[in-house]
Structure formats: C-alpha cells, structure tokens
C-alpha cells in the first residue's frame, strides 16, 4: 500500500473510531443528567451547567479526531 492510500484510509478510520467513545460518553452524561433533573427538579440549572461542562470535556476527544482527519487528509 502506498503512503497516499494509507493516509486516506487512516483519515477515514481516525474520525470514525474517534467518534465511538465520545458518542457513548455523551450518551451517559446526558442520560444521567436527565435522571438527576427528574429526581431533583429544583437543581435543574446547576445540573444543566454541569452537563454541558461534561459534554464539552467528552466532545473534545471526538474533535481531536476531526482535526486528525484534516491533517491526514492534507497528507494524502
């Protein structure tokens, strides 16, 4: 396999693989936040802020994958 093909293959794989973990993670964060909001509706504001914070940290990993996609795509 030549370098160009390997870079394109890697570019495709890297974003797909990078999206799996954060996908599961954001699901867990949002699901538990809904549970917390339902159990204690008076804490809704604080739970929502914390949820966005958790989503932001988790989502960063997927975005690193997106960035790596562009880097690898530029190599091809």
């Amino acid at each position, binding site marked *: 396999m030549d370098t160009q093909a390997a870079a394109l293959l890697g570019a495709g794989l890297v974003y797909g693989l990078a999206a799996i973990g954060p996908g599961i993670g954001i699901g867990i964060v949002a699901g538990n936040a809904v549970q917390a909001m339902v159990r204690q509706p008076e804490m809704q504001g604080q739970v929502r*802020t914390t949820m*966005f*914070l958790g989503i*932001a940290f988790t989502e960063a990993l997927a975005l*690193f994958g*997106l960035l790596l996609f562009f880097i690898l795509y530029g190599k091809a």
Partner: protein
Amino acid sequence: MIVAQIVQVPSDINEMFDWPAVLPLGINRVVLLVFLATIATFLFLYLPFRRSRIVPTKFQAAVEWGVGFVKTNIGRDVIGPESVKYEWLLIPMFFWILFLNLFEVTPFINFPPTSRMAIPAFLAVFVYIVFVFVGIKKHGFRYFFKTVVPDVPWPYLILVTPIEIISVFFIRPVSLAVRLFANMLAGHIMLTVFFLTSAAYFVLSPKLLAFPIPFAFAVVITGFEIFVGALQAFIFTLLTAVYIESSIHLEH
C-alpha cells in the same frame, strides 16, 4: 470596497480555507469580520447603558438579561462571590465569541471567523495567561506546586504528577482552542456541503427535483448552528470561569 469584501461570495472552493489579503498588513476578510464583531460587541454593551433607565427599553432589557446570564450562571455559580473581579473578561468575551459564531448563519456573511485557528488560539493563550497569573498572584509559587502535587498518598504521585502537568498546562489551552475551532469548522463545512449539493442539483439536473432534500437539511442545520454557536460561546466562557476558579481554590 470593504463592504464588498464582507459580503462577497467565494468563486473558488479553496477560498473557504485561504483568503487573500485585501488591505495592507495582511488584512483579509477574516480580520475585517473580527473588526466588525468587535464593533458590534462594543455597541451592544455600550449603547443600552449610555443612558440607562430605571424602566428599561426593550433593547436594554434584552442586553441586561444577557449580561445577567453571564454574571450569574457563568460567573457567580462557578467562581463564587469573587467573580466580580473577572467580569471584565467573561462578559465581553462571551458576546465577542457569540457574534463571531453567529456570523456563520448571518445572511450575506455566512462565515464564522472562529473557524480559523488563529482566533480560538489567541483566546486560549489569553485565558491561559489569565488563569496562571491569577494562581500566581493568589498563591505565589505554591500555585504550581499545589497544582501538580495533589493531596494523594505519595506513591501515586509518580503517576499523578506527570498527568497533572500535561493536563493543566498543555491539554487545557489546546483543547479549549480546538473545541471552539473544530465545532465551528465542522458546522461551516456541513452547511457548505448541503447548500452546495442543493445548488448543484438545481443547476445540473433540475428535472430530478432532488434539490429540496439537501436544502431542507441545510435549513434544519442552520437552526442547529445557531444553537451550537451560542452553546460554544457559553462553554468557552464557562471553562474560562472553571479554570480561573481552579486557580483560586487549589484544594480540590
């Protein structure tokens, strides 16, 4: 001429990534849009309070709601009573990023300057300097020691200290910049792809009647991008507040 630069339509797809300079000092379309957002932020925060009234006008009430949101939900809830000292940073930064992000869906502009790495990188470096400076000012050199040596049994420090050094002083600014940049770039590319697909169907094979489908997607995504732009401005400011808070209160 400057207005023509701001509302221009790129003739070539590569201009999505590479804007030629139009004025001296390498000022290109991105820089002009940044200037526009800066002026908009200044007017947005200055005009309603130039002659503020006890019974606010509609515009003043809206701006007061936005400023109050940043003050309470981002500043006071995260940092605590000391947040008053950092509002000079949080409030203008929130609205500046918000305006830059909303240029993505503004008609005739359709380009978020935050999807150029320079602007998120500048903001992240600025936030980095601020939170390190706050930590040093508050705790002196102990700030670095306390940050990288947390309160755990000492054998764990072999593992924890390198992780803390990397995560606080390297990953923090990088992920802060990349999060904003990659979100806006992804949204911009998504909008471009759907609008261009719709236009290509319309021009190349109008009898197929396929062009409404990508166009409908593009309209939905436009609404979604308004949400994402506001959310990213919120998250960037929120994380700034969280980092400042972690520099003030070292014990957790």
